[in-house]
């Protein structure tokens, strides 16, 4: 049966680079996919692009390509990625320059555009899901709107014969599904196969999270070699069945348990996983260990895709100011609590009214609140104040107030850290599918 091998070279924008090189060199791959766009990444990219028209793509793009392109070129591994982020064209030109400097003859990049739908968002005055009202009524300072596109543009890009396909916002599993549909000629209404391929893409998209990363719990779930964690690859056959594995000798583990955790990662209804390509059904997926670090995936399904696409909308949402200070030894918790109480009182003394505030004792109640903190007094604690503010100056003030505890607060406070940052928040909405059009631009010498 016809088979292809697809590797996953990154699970997020800043992921390790060496495991991708290892895959390119030793994975006997046909495709290497880099999924590098979290919900907010593209909105950050839009801000960067506004400041410099040649920026707005993944910050590690050049380093990644310098590392993997020679092996990918030599081994005929095609690359598919969303590292274009807010500026896929600029990313494409950068990759062409790197390929030229590396002496890779006849290198070709296909850039997929069309996800930027900021004009359509305003023209159609779409309803924001979280705000619950139309854009024009929301009063939000919107800076980006990007539609999650499916495989269509990627397929056209692959058909061009390009060595590398660079997109912006594309649904994560679609990056993996496109090579399967391209190679096996699956009809784009074969919902079962698209569901199976989407499941494989979902399993691979967070890279190390299926090979033992984000899994270890010493003494209970031990994983060997996390400092040299291998990233996953799937051997996919034309029926849509697959084996998840990794390069021999790499760190980590691929077992049924790692696959199960990743199957349910960021999933809501298991029988209705919406992507632009299909409504995938993971409810009957099963995993079978077939040997060391080899797990077979079976049982995914799918049904007809929806007529709408999701848009993620980025908007400016004020500022957050933070300050932290640590206490240790006898009575550390009481001194940490006193520190928080002082800062809270200072805010009222200074007539500063937080929009929203948190007062945490890291080591006691910062992660899960007070009611679960029953494990005795810790040796050290860190008092943490975080405040939502309407201006940057207010956010700076919050950290400064915590810093004044050095000379004005409880005994023995140390290690102050403070920060003030602008908040880039996200909302989402749905757009009719026919309003979004993928287009391809080919870059070659």
């Amino acid at each position, binding site marked *: 049966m016809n088979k292809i091998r697809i590797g996953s070279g990154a699970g997020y924008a800043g992921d390790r680079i060496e495991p991708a090189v290892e895959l390119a060199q030793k994975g006997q791959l046909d495709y290497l996919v880099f999924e590098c766009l979290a919900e907010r990444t593209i909105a950050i990219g839009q801000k960067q692009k506004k400041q410099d028209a040649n920026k707005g793509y993944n910050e590690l793009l050049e380093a990644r390509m310098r590392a993997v392109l020679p092996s990918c070129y030599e081994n005929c591994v095609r690359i598919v990625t969303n590292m274009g982020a807010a500026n896929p064209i600029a990313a494409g030109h950068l990759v062409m320059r790197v390929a030229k400097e590396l002496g890779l003859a006849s290198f070709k990049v296909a850039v997929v555009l069309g996800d930027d739908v900021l004009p359509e968002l305003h023209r159609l005055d779409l309803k924001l899901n979280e705000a619950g009202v139309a854009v024009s009524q929301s009063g939000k300072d919107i800076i980006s709107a990007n539609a999650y596109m499916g495989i269509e543009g990627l397929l056209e890009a692959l058909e061009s014969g390009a060595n590398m396909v660079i997109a912006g916002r594309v649904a994560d599993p679609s990056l993996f599904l496109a090579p399967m549909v391209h190679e096996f000629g699956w009809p784009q209404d074969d919902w079962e196969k698209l569901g199976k391929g989407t499941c494989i893409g979902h399993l691979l998209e967070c890279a190390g999270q299926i090979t033992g990363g984000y899994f270890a719990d010493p003494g209970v779930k031990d994983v060997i070699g996390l400092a040299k964690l291998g990233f996953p690859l799937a051997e996919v056959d034309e029926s849509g069945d697959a084996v998840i594995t990794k390069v021999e000798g790499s760190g980590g583990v691929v077992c049924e348990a790692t696959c199960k*955790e990743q199957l*349910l990662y960021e999933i809501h209804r298991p029988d209705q996983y919406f992507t632009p390509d299909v409504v995938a059904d993971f409810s009957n997926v099963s995993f079978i260990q077939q040997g060391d670090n080899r797990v077979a995936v079976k049982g995914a399904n799918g049904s007809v895709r929806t007529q709408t696409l999701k848009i993620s909308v980025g908007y400016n949402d004020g500022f957050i100011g933070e300050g932290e200070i640590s206490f240790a030894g006898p009575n550390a918790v009481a001194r940490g609590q006193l520190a928080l109480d002082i800062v809270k009182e200072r805010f009222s003394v200074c007539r500063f009214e937080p929009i*929203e505030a*948190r007062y945490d004792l890291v080591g006691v109640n910062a*992660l*899960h609140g007070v009611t679960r903190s029953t494990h005795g007094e810790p040796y050290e604690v860190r008092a943490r104040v975080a*405040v*939502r503010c309407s201006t940057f100056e207010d956010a700076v003030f919050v950290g400064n107030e915590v810093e004044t505890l050095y000379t004005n607060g409880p005994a023995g406070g140390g290690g102050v850290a403070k920060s003030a940052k602008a908040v880039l928040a996200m909302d*989402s909405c749905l757009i009719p599918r026919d309003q979004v059009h993928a287009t391809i631009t080919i870059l070659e010498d």
Partner: protein
Amino acid sequence: MKLRDIAHSRTGDKGDISNISLIVYDIHDYGQIKDAVTAEKVQNWFSDIVSGEVVRYELPAIGALNFVMYEALGGGVTRSLALDIHGKSLSSALLDFVI
């Protein structure tokens, strides 16, 4: 017995929604967590963190439950004031649950 003794877990986030998987090591223990770890109990367990509804989905084929918790992340990863903005550590709190 704590859930940690028979199951493992991972948390994911989408906007202000957190989902926590609960997966038994031994498929024979699935019936036990299915009976003992209801959506209502999880809602109570996270009552000081989760403001919205908790919905449970069952995956008998892999011996897992998936809990979807609404209004769980202080407005979502992009605007939360929390230390753990993704709520990634919530899985560990679920494994501390006694059955």
